[in-house]
């Protein structure tokens, strides 16, 4: 089952299936390490609910929910 990374429970590992969003922004996500097959973990949600803090390839990245929604995980 595919889920958007913006809607997955915190502190559980998910595997990236595909990216689906504006081309330029998706390229940026790929550059940052969000490549299909890679495992990611949502570690925090900012107090106002946005952005999310995501652990990918040993780095912590803050992504807005809008951006996280382009990442489909399973």
């Amino acid at each position: 089952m595919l889920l958007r990374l913006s809607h997955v429970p915190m502190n559980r590992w998910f595997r990236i299936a595909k990216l689906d969003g504006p081309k330029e922004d998706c390229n940026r996500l790929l550059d940052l390490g969000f490549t299909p097959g890679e495992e990611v973990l949502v570690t925090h949600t900012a107090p106002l609910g946005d952005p999310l803090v995501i652990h990918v390839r040993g780095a912590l990245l803050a992504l807005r929910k809008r951006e996280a929604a382009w990442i489909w995980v399973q």
Partner: protein
Amino acid sequence: MDCHSSDTEVLDAVPSKDLTVCLVGMPNAGKTTLMNALTGGNFHTANYPGVTVSLMRGKTKADLGPVVNIVDLPGVHSSIAPSPEEELACSVIEGRNSRVKPEAFVLVVDATQLERHLKFAGFVAHQKKPIVVALTMVDLVARNHKTLDVAKLEKALGVPVIPVDARTGKGARELLSALQQASARPLQSNTLAVLPTDSTAAFDAVRALLQKNGIVPRADVRPEIDPLTRKIDHYALHKVWGFPIFLVALISLFGAIFWAAKPFMDAIDSAFGGLGNLFIRVFGESMVVRFLANGIIAGVGSVAVFFPQIMILFFLMTLLEDSGYLARGAALVDRPLAALGLHGRSFVPMLSGFACAIPAVFAARAIPSRRERLLTIWIIPLMSCSARLPVYALLLAAVLPAAAWKQGLSLAAIYICSLLVGSLMAGVASRFVYKYKSPSMLAMELPVYRIPRWKPILRMTWARGSSYLKRAGRPIVTVSAILWLISNFGTTPQSFVAPTPMDHSFAAQLGQKIEPALHPMGVDWRVGVGLISAFAAREVFVSSMAIVFHVNGDEATRQDGLLEQMRTATFLGTTQRIFTPASIVGLIVFFFFSLQCFATVAVVRKETGSWKIAGLQLAFYTGLGYVLAVSSVQLLRALGVA
């Protein structure tokens, strides 16, 4: 994008026999800290007009061996470059840039994120130039009881790998000697040169390479987060505690900017006042001496007086940045700022704007997208900078005499209003002026927390502070000199030694010319002279008011004398008082909005690369200030407030 068509004044690309080396790497790899360690903080920032991009250039310290020219390139995520910074960096790396021709590269790699940072290595290696890898953050690997086999990594990559510690400068000498050796011998093939440049393939290839050589575990072991960072983030990003912690950090920052800087500012202020007087006493009264003392020395003084505050601001900002907290702060406030069309990182320039707009405009560089950066620069002049403080203090004391607490409360209200109005302005501008199809991405790395490294922080603070003095100094001193000339000369010079009295000067004539425009604001030409002179720096309003209203005496008694004069001043030839509650409120409103600072205009022009935004800002805010000042005076009068 063409980065090198119009940059005539910037990079001093002097052909040099010394080796030219570029530092390349991802953002947050520690390039700037390494730059500091290699050059001893002795580098300068060269701007590329047209795009808000700057390169840092410097020469290595003499005690580190043969001198090498070092260029610090902006951080790059990939070779498909969407931002102007990345485009510039890529053009330099590929040798397409006419001004910077690198002969070798230092690839700066974060030891805790080898995979992400080496992904870019293929692109650099394809240029067929010598490469040395500088391994940063090695202390963080040790902190988590892990080890990294540098010899194995060197063997795997086929290029020299030198661990460097920016805190102690350890490794800098080894790095430079490895560079000299690598560029002296013929280029050898290395593993990096066969890495793919496409990002997905590059990630896979780097991981395979690292696993094959036993540098990272072969099995699918999930990477761990630094435990200390995890612990601190639990509170720093906490649902309940996140904002109170952020607020405490901000309040401490403000406290330091205003209270800790105060004694230094007072000392500098009286030192320059004394210096001017001493100058006149030593060289005697003459026009030139007066010009130097009251025009130039006082002008330099008005720049220097803000120096302590700006140094404290830069120091604390660099401290927050180095410790890793600044990025968390930006993440916390991203949501409300994004709603206004700004970026999480906009909070740093906005905050700096409460000290001075000039460092704030510099700070806006950290915002990755141009649109959000311009929008942030657009609202910076609304932040209540500290040059407005003496003006508000004078005006509030005049309108609310003998009620210190009411003055304090009003001042606090003015500060809060400036933040609210700035936000409103950003919201309006992002919807109607700087329209955009889709917002840009946040995608901001949160670095791991670390104990601040004092030496690099102090070096960085000094580099930023001296850049402020250089950039802001010239326009402020120039404007101050011009204003002195027009306030001391007129069409009828009376004598050579004592120039024209203020009442007959060009400034007064200018004031009288604009008097019809000043009447609706409820003030006369003398206040107009004060308003014109405030374009040198807002706080000059107070001293020129003292001059036009003929208040004598030293610093201590002048404020009281001026207040007394303001209480009794009437429009010339009438008994109608000038400074009524209505007209004072009008002046406060004018200072609140108007962009009375030519130095800010000059710096915005430089940072945005054109007069368009700078000129528009000047006209818009000054016009808005005038219209709103007139409206509030007329409204108050209509309501029966004199």
